[in-house]
């Protein structure tokens, strides 16, 4: 699966980092950064959780 981030929507809440630290980080302004774009099954649940908690609907998971 591929993770997509719409950075201009991101409100720097850091929720994604709390639930999926291996996939997301934040820059100095708090805007989310993708550490990985393609993820395997091991991280799938974490990323789904991040999609669900992101208050800006800035994260999407797309099937490849």
């Amino acid at each position, binding site marked *: 699966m591929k993770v997509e981030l719409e950075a201009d*929507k991101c*409100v*720097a809440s*850091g929720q994604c980092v709390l639930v999926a630290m291996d996939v997301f980080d934040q820059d100095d*302004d*708090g805007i989310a950064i993708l550490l990985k774009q393609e993820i395997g099954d091991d991280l799938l649940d974490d990323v789904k959780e991040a999609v669900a908690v992101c*208050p*800006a*609907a800035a994260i999407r998971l797309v099937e490849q």
Partner: protein
Amino acid sequence: MRRIVVVGASAAGLAAAETLRREGYDGTLTLVGDEPLAPYDRPPLSKQLLSGEWRPEKLDLRTADDLAALDLDLRLGVAAIGLRLAERTVRLADGSTVPYDGLIIATGVRPRRLPSEGAHVLRTLDDALTLRDRLGPGRRLVIVGAGFLGAEAAAVGRQLGCEVTLLEPAPVPLAHAVGTDVGEMLTRAHLERGVNLRCGVTVAAVTEDGVRLADGELVEADEVLVAIGSMPNTEWLDGSGLSVGDGVVCDQYCEAARNVYAAGDVARWYNPLFGTSMRIEHRTNAAEQGMAAARNLLNSEARKPFSPVPYFWSDQYDMKIQAFGYLRGHDEVAVVEGDLAERRFVVAYRTGDRVSGALAVGMPPKAIRQWRQAIATGASWAEAVRPAVPAES
């Protein structure tokens, strides 16, 4: 459980519906919303949408494909008007009755209003588009209420070249919520941008020409925005037997009655982390609580208390304000990093002997995370804050 009904098709309701499917629920899932639109996001309404930076489509919470994948019995543009607990049915405005085994209430809040004709409020996409079309250079915008919503609208109004007047009954805007020092610091930012702020005034009514104050003075306006707080949408639950008092009253699992849960702005639940019942009107809470309610409904044997650290952000001019925890009723505020005057700081809030909240402006995420952690673990004020600031005598 074969039939679950979620009432309220916005952030909390959508999060609940998605979580039910993610957790493997494959029965009938009815999502009822009185707005005719697919779930969209509200925070941008007073920010990027009002400023004209974003088009309405950008607010969609999910794509049509994502929604289709949820396999919903979607009832949009129809309000729920009644609940019968004993029969386990929800009545809808179109005359239909929907039976349920499990129910999640996520009907949110609506703006409080003033006796007025033609005043704007700002809650729905429609509200925001109507107001946006009326703003522009030289237009006189009067905003009643200098809370976060009013302040954000004031900032956008200035950005669009409006003459903006903010009317606030309290002596210092937001002081009750964030403390006097932070309230004053936020106020200064508005004054610097040319907002005409008038504190300590009471508004009697909105008239055709503007706003009539309690002492009789008329504050002239082309457009008036009333932003004086909100009321939970619970009328449809009247007579249902559910306990309703400033929100649907829930236990620590977000349960209001057997197999009936509430989430988001409408829910008043007991948060064990702070040892008090609360109702939180924040975007992150809507999603988190929708998820928690859905999980507890499905896994009744292994329910978990919902004990989040509430989180809120607000954008005003070039400032991003971030607040964690439960600030209401705090006993003390201390600057723990940075400097208020520079608009780069973290302040911590003490309630009793605990760190109950933190608010940051212009700080990197790492500086903030440690304070969120302190709140989440119930750190004592003496341990977490005193080492950072010299003790006051």
